């Protein structure tokens, strides 16, 4: 456990000693700010029928940040260490593969959480200036945050696996971006495939992260969403672990 926290701290530190961390946060902030300005504009012209955070999931900005930022912030995790050779010094220290995988995952997830912090500020600002307490329902906000976190876990886990498979950060980023995009778009297929088809529809609607997030941000905690995100996160982390262990396969 001590080693785990040590590694988490070290990984988090890496985000901030180089420019990567700041650039990712700045880019996410920029996109969110843009989206915020758009919402303000919309609020001025017509009355609102959705809750504020729902507007975010309707917006391209949210998905752009999720789909693009996660590959960028996870690509480094294993690939860079393999490239520079520090993976060898790490793995010849008395640490277990599980500790390393979980620590890297946790650090990336914490960073992902930090990245979304401005969103809270934006929501609160909106609440302040509209002077309408009802516009932000805290239950729904909590649901939305849970949704962001669950999706983050899934996407960070995908990034971990991609990074563990290669020593090139570019390849890792591409791989996790394509996988993440495939899951996102696959969910949309649920609307196109009729329910009469049986299992294809069932599978696709499980994958429909857009729908999941919408439910959560309305304060509806659907166990399907939670189960889907947690189980896929677990699957990808397990595969990451196997990838890390594979160097010791005979």
């Amino acid at each position, binding site marked *: 456990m001590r080693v785990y926290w040590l590694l988490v701290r070290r990984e988090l530190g890496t985000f901030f000693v180089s420019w990567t961390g700041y650039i990712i946060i700045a880019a996410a902030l920029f996109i969110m700010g843009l989206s915020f300005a758009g919402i303000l504009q919309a609020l001025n012209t017509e009355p609102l029928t959705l809750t504020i955070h729902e507007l975010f999931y309707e917006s391209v900005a949210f998905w752009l940040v999720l789909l693009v930022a996660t590959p960028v912030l996870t690509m480094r995790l294993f690939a860079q260490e393999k490239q520079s*050779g520090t993976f060898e*010094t790490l793995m*010849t220290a*008395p640490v277990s593969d599980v500790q390393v995988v979980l620590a890297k995952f946790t650090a990336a997830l914490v960073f992902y959480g930090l990245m979304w912090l401005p969103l809270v500020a934006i929501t609160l600002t909106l609440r302040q200036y509209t002077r309408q307490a009802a516009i932000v329902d805290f239950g729904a906000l909590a649901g939305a945050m849970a949704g962001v976190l669950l999706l983050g876990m899934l996407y960070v886990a995908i990034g971990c696996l991609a990074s563990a498979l290669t020593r090139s950060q570019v390849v890792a980023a591409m791989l996790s971006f394509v996988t993440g995009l495939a899951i996102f778009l696959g969910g949309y297929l649920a609307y196109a495939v009729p329910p009469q088809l049986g299992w294809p529809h069932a599978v696709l609607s499980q994958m429909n992260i857009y729908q999941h997030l919408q439910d959560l941000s309305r304060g509806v905690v659907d166990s399907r969403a939670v189960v889907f995100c947690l189980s896929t996160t677990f699957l990808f982390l397990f595969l990451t672990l196997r990838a890390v262990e594979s160097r010791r396969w005979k």
Partner: protein
Amino acid sequence: MTAGPMIEVQNLTKRYAGRLAVDRLNFTVQRGEVVGLLGPNGAGKSTTMRILACYLPATEGTARVAGLDVYTQADEVRRRIGYMPEHNPLHRDMRVRDYLKFRARLKGLSRAASRERVDIVMQQCGLTEAHKRIIGHLSKGFQQRVGLADALVHDPELLILDEPTIGLDPNQIRAVRQMIKELATRHTVLLSSHILPEVEITCGRVLILANGRILAADTPNNLQKRLGEGGLVVAEIAAPEAALKACFDTQPEILRYDIAPAEGAYYRCTFSAPPGVDLRPILFELVRQHNWTLRELTRNQLSLEDIFVRLTRPDREEEG
């Protein structure tokens, strides 16, 4: 601490996708020894060290460190080993002290113990002045010291150093060698190199590897004695050429000789002798008997370098 050898390697074999990197290796390293793995590039030195450091598994055979199996008891073995991989990878964005502290904690030292050990190893490796500098900004020699300090920080029983002086300038090489020599008093050291003088100077015993096999294993001195023949002896003698030839032809100890005229009446004669025979007293006796004049008599010991080239050059097998 248990008795018994520090490293025991039996029939160690490592196959990478169709290529045999290490081929049924057998060797033992006793506690307190400094052993050098010597071989051309691609001989299997790094692979052997990576297996011992529990980074790669062996395809066949076993390796034990301090009596512990490197595959099944990897965690225990890692605690006992200080390993510095080839090219000395470091977190270049960290400061020297922070990095060493991180590594010490990672290797299981408590906060207080790590602080203490980091100070000790920084002193030992001459890093105290540089403790606040960013590793990526240090010179290569200093980075090498950081790597060495990292390997030492948990006071391991065994140090495995893969090419510790590669890419350094001569002064830095000398400094690193000196450090290794000092370490040898407290630790068992296994180091690899393809630079011969280094091994000759620092190691008590040498294992010469080529194509994944051990070709020779002995102390540098014994290797010279065993494989070095008698070496070459050079003499400059003032005498008629015909008389010299007549005399040398009848001597059974002289395997081959070569005579070339030098300035004046002198001839420069080069002799090769069978293993274990020192030609110098014999030659002196001959000169005395014939009343010639002798102005030089030297023996060129075959260096480890010559032995190495003989053992590892690719055409050796055709020669049989």
